[in-house]
């Protein structure tokens, strides 16, 4: 399974758990959404391998499942790192150079926005205004807020998480 080499490494127990989730809903009507929901909680995202398994077990075409996953914003196709960086791309941040911050993040982590580093540690997301325009440009790493950023601060901030 693709999920085997997913960010967080550990999967076989997860496959077991996924099976249990599916079993729990299998014979109920409208099983798909709750199964996707719990599967996402389990894996953090919904990769092809997981959707394929759900498709086979619930006998719903993969295309239909993928349609549901991409329709609802609550579902995601990409994994999140243990430290998920949300960079605000709202107007205020954008004007104050959020793009330069993004460039720096991408360069330092070697991944694109929307992706996750190989070791499963960091992921970058671009998000809409988080309501901290006074601090623009702003980013959050999990629950921690960093404001008035300049590109040269980025390395130092990331370093704080290196050994955590």
């Amino acid at each position: 399974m693709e999920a085997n080499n997913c960010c967080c490494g550990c999967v076989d127990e997860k496959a077991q758990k996924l099976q249990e989730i599916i079993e729990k809903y299998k014979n109920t009507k409208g099983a798909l959404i709750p199964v996707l929901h719990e599967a996402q909680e389990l894996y953090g995202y919904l990769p092809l391998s997981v959707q394929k398994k759900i498709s086979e077990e619930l006998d719903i075409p993969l295309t239909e499942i993928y349609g549901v996953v991409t329709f609802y914003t609550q579902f995601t196709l990409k994994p999140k790192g243990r430290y998920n960086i949300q960079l605000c791309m709202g107007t205020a941040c954008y004007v104050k150079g959020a793009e330069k911050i993004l460039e720096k993040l991408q360069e330092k982590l070697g991944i694109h926005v929307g992706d996750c580093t190989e070791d499963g540690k960091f992921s970058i997301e671009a998000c809409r205004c988080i309501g901290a325009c006074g601090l623009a440009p702003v980013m959050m790493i999990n629950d921690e807020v960093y404001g008035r950023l300049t590109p040269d601060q980025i390395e130092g901030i990331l370093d704080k998480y290196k050994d955590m």
Partner: protein
Amino acid sequence: MEMVNITIDNRKLQVPKDYTVLEAARYANIAIPTLCFLKDINEIGACRMCVVEIKGARSLQAACVYPVSEGLVINTKSPAVREARKVTLELILSNHDRKCLTCVRSRNCELQKLAEELNIKDIRFEGETYKLPLDNFSPSIVRDPNKCVLCRRCVSMCKNIQGVAAIDTNERGFKTIVSPAFNKSLNEVPCTMCGQCINVCPVGALREKDDTDKVWQALENPDLYVIAQTAPAVRVALGEEFGMPIGTRVTSNMIAALRRLGFNKVFDTDTAADLTIMEEGTELINRIKNGGKLPLITSCSPGWIKFCEHNYPEFLDNLSTCKSPHQMFGAVLKSYYAEKMGIDPAKIFVVSIMPCTAKKFEAQRPELSSTGYPDVDVVLTTRELARMIREAGIDFTNLPERYFDDPMGKGSGAGVIFGATGGVMEAALRTVAEILGGKPIDDDSLEYNEVRGVKGIKEASIKIGDFTLKAAVAHGLGNARRLLDRIKAGEAEYHFVEIMACPGGCVNGGGQPIQPSEVRSWIDLRRERAAAIYEEDRSLSIRKSHENPAVKMLYSEYFGEPGSHKAHELLHTHYTKRENYPENK
């Protein structure tokens, strides 16, 4: 039938109670524009092109899904209605890739026609223009999302009728797109390449991979000996491309046009269909007599074969090992015919003119090159042939009478009916009944009506001497699925099963002329074209495969007998299980 009284544009009339407003309007000869609506296939009321005013209703209603009722008062062209339709259409057009001049569907495009009919002179909205990548990795189907109007007809066809679900509506809002899962190419998903999605697409968003250039080049190459072979369903549909009525037989015009295009020989795939019957009939008799794997399932529909490889690998041993007729023919042309005529098989270029897009995929299967060369070099659909004829400036409706070339131009009536659902079964029965029964069957009893027609799954028990042959026929892959599930569950048992991927069989194949939704509301293409096929059968003096002189010659001069070693080498093949969504990237 219970009727109701309605008023439509101030005209009072009575219509059946189960009509929609759209049907009632059409009945009264009042045109209502539609886009997403396709009778029996996509009745989802999504595009709102067809809105009308209903007295008493708060907002405009979609005529294609609104049922009539006693006393209903409808206005189909009030200012509000006309404005709403225009806005809807302009919004669709605002981000449409409006390059009609270079679009394959120009002049046969429902969107273009709507723009004309609704008198659109200006597009008041500045749509965000974006360019999505073309999916042209499949050998059969090209998907161009920039032309898609999100009508979902292809989704309904692929999911509900074909039971494949290779494409669906994904994402939401402005990003909404009809595509395979995970943005994969149609080439990487369990698409059967049947092309039914193309036939229902109102615009140029789905089309066949155009291979006409390859054929033009071959025709220009003096070193090549270019042979055309034509499938039975082409001759009953090609005329539609030139404005002739649906169901017109144009065999002679088609042959004449192919000659003018410069093909060295024009042969009839029906000859190979007859060969298929000899091989497959023998296979059937052997399996029945020797306790082989039953039911035997036909293998001439490459869309069906790919479907089986993806979804029912447990039935792969049930499939007849016979290649599809045009592939057999290609192999015969590059072996027997090449030897007989003293032509280097490397120089023979075989072009199959087919009603089918799946055959483009089939022709490039590596195992289908028994002579060391691909059996078939290029497959053109009926539509592509029409394009070549137009490009060459040939006046199609006005051509001299012409016949297929000898010695491979003789097909029997049995070969012709391969083009309609039930036809392969009937053709096989004509031969098998005679061989198993040990005595000739006369012309009156060689038409097996129980396997004809458009019913999704047809069953028949045919008495041959003291043996009763149990047969089933399914057309459209959704029906195939239902039939196979029943067989799998042990609910049904047969000796012989015919499956064709396309609803109605090849006459309604994914490469056939495209008729707009409105025509399809009145006319069942499957019936009209099949009727022409059965007429063609009746017009021929030889109607049984084993009586075809070309087939007799092939066996006496080359193959020996059906099922011989040589026959197996050239005319048979094997199948492979295919994974549905392979994960290695």
